[in-house]
C-alpha cells in the first residue's frame, strides 16, 4: 500500500515542471520585482486552466489507457498533429535546455564552480535517472525535495511585510513605471507557462507509467488538486518575495542568483541552503519531466514502444530520443547562450501548441468510446471551452506583444 503522501508525487512533480522550472523561477522574480503582485491573478487563472485540462487528460489515461499525444495523433491526423509535435517539441526541448543550464547554475550557487563545467555533469545525472531509476522513485524523490521551495512562502512571513500594502498590489492595475504592453506581455507569458503543454503530456503518460485504471480516478483528481495549486502558490510566493525586497530597492532581476537575495535577508544561510536544495530538485525534476516528455510525444505520435516501466531494450527508440535531446541540450549550452533567455522564445511555439493540444483532449474527454460512463460533465465542458477561447486569444496576442515589447524589454 502506497502512503497517502506519495500518491500525489506525480501531480507535484508535474506542477514543479510547469510553474517552478528554471525559466519560470526567474520570470516570477522578474514579475514580482517589476509589477509587485499585480499579476498574481494570472497565475490563479492559469492554475484553474491547467487543473481542468490535466484532470481531463489524467481521466482519459486512467479510463482508456491512452496518453495525450496518442489522442492528438488519432483525432487531428498526421498533418495537424505533426505541426503540434514540432511546436511542442520546440517548447519542450527549449525548456530542457534551460533546465540543464538551470541545474548547473544552481550547483554554481552552491559550489562556486563555473556553471559550464557543471553542464555535462548535470546532463549525465539526468540521463542516469532516466536510464536506471524506477518511475515512482523518481517522482517521489524529486517531488518531495522540490517541496523545499516552500521556503519561499516561509520567507514571505519572515520578511514581515505590510500585508495591507501587499494586498493592495493584488488589485492594482499596471504600475505607473511600466507600459500596458509590457504588463500584458508578462501576463501572457505567465499564463502560457502555467498551461505549458508538456505538463499534460507528462501527467497523462505518468498515469500510464503508474498503471492507473478507472479505480485510480480519485488518485488522478487528488494529484491535480494538490499539485497545481501548490505550484501556483509557490510561484506567487516567489513573486511576493521579490515584491517585498527587490521592488522597493529597484533591483532588476536577470539571473537565478538574485532569487536568493530576499531569502538571505529573511532567513539567513540556513534558509538559503534549503532553497538551494529546492532549486536543484525543482530544476532537476523539470529536466526529467521535459526529457521524458520529448520521448513521450515522439513515441506516441509515431507509435513506438515507450515508458520507463519497460526495460530500455524494450523501448529503444524512446530512450534514444531522450539521449539525443540531452545531447542537443548540452551542445546548445556549450555555445554559452543564456539558458534562461532561451525559454522566452518558447512563447512563440506555445502559441501553436496550446490550442492544438487542449482541443483534442476536450473532444476525447466527451467521447463515450474512450470514456464510457466517465465522459465530461457540463460544468467541465463549459470550463474547458472557456479556457480554449482564452488560449486562442492569448496565443494570438503572444507574438505581437513579444515583438512590440522586445520580450518584456
Amino acid at each position, binding site marked *: 500500500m502506497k502512503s497517502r503522501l506519495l500518491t500525489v508525487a506525480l501531480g507535484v512533480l508535474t506542477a514543479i515542471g510547469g510553474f517552478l522550472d528554471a525559466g519560470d523561477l526567474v520570470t516570477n522574480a522578474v514579475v514580482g520585482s517589476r509589477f509587485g503582485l499585480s499579476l498574481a491573478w494570472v497565475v490563479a487563472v492559469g492554475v484553474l486552466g491547467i487543473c481542468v485540462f490535466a484532470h481531463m487528460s489524467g481521466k482519459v489515461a486512467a479510463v*482508456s*489507457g*491512452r496518453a495525450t499525444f*496518442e489522442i492528438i*495523433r*488519432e483525432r487531428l*491526423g*498526421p*498533418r495537424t*498533429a*505533426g505541426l503540434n509535435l514540432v511546436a511542442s517539441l520546440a517548447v519542450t526541448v527549449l525548456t530542457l535546455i534551460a533546465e540543464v543550464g538551470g541545474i548547473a547554475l544552481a550547483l554554481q550557487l552552491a559550489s562556486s564552480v563555473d556553471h559550464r563545467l557543471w553542464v555535462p555533469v548535470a546532463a549525465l545525472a539526468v540521463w542516469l535517472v532516466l*536510464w*536506471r*531509476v*524506477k*518511475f515512482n522513485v523518481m517522482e517521489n524523490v524529486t517531488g518531495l525535495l522540490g517541496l523545499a521551495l516552500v521556503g519561499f512562502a516561509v520567507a514571505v512571513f519572515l520578511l514581515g511585510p505590510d500585508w495591507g500594502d501587499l494586498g493592495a498590489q493584488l488589485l492594482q492595475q499596471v504600475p505607473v513605471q511600466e507600459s500596458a504592453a509590457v504588463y500584458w506581455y508578462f501576463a501572457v507569458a505567465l499564463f502560457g507557462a502555467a498551461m505549458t503543454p508538456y505538463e499534460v503530456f507528462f501527467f497523462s503518460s505518468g498515469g500510464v507509467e503508474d498503471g492507473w485504471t478507472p479505480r485510480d480516478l480519485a488518485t488522478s483528481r487528488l494529484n491535480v488538486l494538490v499539485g497545481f495549486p501548490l505550484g501556483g502558490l509557490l510561484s506567487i510566493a516567489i513573486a511576493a518575495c521579490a515584491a517585498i525586497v527587490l521592488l522597493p530597492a529597484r533591483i532588476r532581476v536577470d539571473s537565478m542568483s538574485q532569487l536568493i537575495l530576499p531569502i538571505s535577508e529573511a532567513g539567513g544561510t540556513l534558509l538559503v541552503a534549503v532553497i538551494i536544495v529546492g532549486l536543484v530538485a525543482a530544476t532537476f525534476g523539470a529536466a526529467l519531466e521535459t526529457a521524458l516528455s520529448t520521448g513521450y510525444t515522439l*513515441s*506516441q*505520435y*509515431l*507509435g*513506438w*514502444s*515507450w515508458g*520507463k*516501466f*519497460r*526495460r*530500455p*531494450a*524494450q523501448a*529503444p*527508440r524512446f*530512450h*534514444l530520443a531522450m539521449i539525443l535531446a540531452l545531447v542537443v541540450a548540452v551542445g546548445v549550452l556549450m555555445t554559452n547562450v543564456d539558458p534562461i533567455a532561451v525559454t522566452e522564445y518558447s512563447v512563440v511555439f506555445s502559441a501553436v501548441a496550446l490550442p492544438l493540444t487542449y482541443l483534442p483532449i476536450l473532444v476525447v474527454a466527451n467521447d463515450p*468510446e*474512450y470514456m464510457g460512463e466517465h465522459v465530461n460533465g457540463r460544468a467541465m465542458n463549459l470550463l474547458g471551452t472557456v479556457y480554449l477561447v482564452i488560449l486562442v486569444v492569448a496565443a494570438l496576442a503572444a507574438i505581437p506583444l513579444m515583438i512590440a515589447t522586445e520580450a518584456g524589454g
Partner: protein
Amino acid sequence: MRRGRTGPRDLAREPEPRQPGRILDARLHLLDRQVLDVDEVPVCTLDDIELELVDGEPAADGRIDSSKPVVIAALLTGPVLGTRIFGGRPPASRWYRLAWGHVADVGTAVRLGVHGADLDATWLERWTRDHVIGRIPGGTHDPEGSG
C-alpha cells in the same frame, strides 16, 4: 417521427440500414490509431488499410468501386509520414502489412493477437535495440525489478 420529403429519394443521404455487429468508420476508428501487440506493447500507428474484393481477388488496378462488396485484407503501416502529410502515394514496397486475421480487437487501440517482435513493422525498433540501446550498459535492466 415523420419527416416531410420534398425531392426524390436521395440514396446517398439515407442512413445506412442497420447492420448486425459494430460499425467501424475506417477514418475514425482505424486510421492513426495506436496498434498494440498481444502483450500490450505498442507496435506502430496505423497509416492505411488494404481492401480486397470478397471473392479474394485483389482489386484490379487498385481501384474499388461501390458495386462489389469488399473486405479489409490488411492494415498498413510504414515509413510513409512524408506522403501522409504532403500527399502522394508511396510505392507498395514501403508498406508493412499486418494481416487482418491477426487483429484481435478494435477499440481505443487496435489490438493484435500476435507478438510485435515477430513483425516486419518493428524492425527499426529491433535494430535500435540491437545496435544502439542494447549496447549501453544497463540497457536490459528491468527498472521495476529489485534494484
